């Protein structure tokens, strides 16, 4: 089975009561990018993954993990 990068972005964002647009603004990307990462359509770069983790105050390895 192929490996994929799963994430808990939606859940963590909901915990903090943030909208996709608000998170996008914090990270400096468009809502479209947050949406595609959340839905697993797009695998973010290490840079974006770390920025997202920082914006959501969670370690990057807790936000993203490899699903086998």
């Amino acid at each position: 089975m192929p490996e994929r990068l799963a994430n808990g972005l939606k859940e963590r964002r909901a915990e903090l009561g943030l909208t996709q647009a608000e998170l996008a603004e914090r990270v400096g990307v468009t809502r479209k990018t947050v949406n595609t990462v959340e839905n697993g359509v797009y695998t973010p770069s290490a840079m974006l993954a770390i920025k997202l983790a920082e914006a959501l105050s969670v370690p990057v390895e807790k936000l993203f993990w490899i699903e086998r």
Partner: protein
Amino acid sequence: MTEQTNSEIAERLSQKRSRILFVLAAIFLSQQASYFSGHDPARPVDHIKIGAWLVLSAVLLLMLATGGAWFRSAEVRALLNDETTREHRRTGFVNGFWAACLTAIGVYVVDMFEPLSGRDAVHIILTVAIAVALLTFARLERRAHRDA
């Protein structure tokens, strides 16, 4: 009226861009129908047609290469060219490259049976490459906006 943030402006422009790209692709492709419906390089009207095609090709290529929104602030342009957009554009260019190669092979084969002028061959290859790159980019952008 409340002032929009750069993110909101970029979001709106990004959605608009994905819609406009489909329209531009349709205009670009429909232009080809009139070109191939018969042209005489000696007629001035055909020079205008070919000129219009060249200008539109250059604008579309520039738009694909830079993301457009040339008269917006640097911040808005940076947001409009964020990570996913760059990835979509890269995929568009890759698909456009393959389309150009396959079309060139097709033109080469056709030329064995029905000779084509160099100008016609360039016209066909360039049109297919730009249209495929444009449509790929527009489709990926549209999909990314959906369900957001």
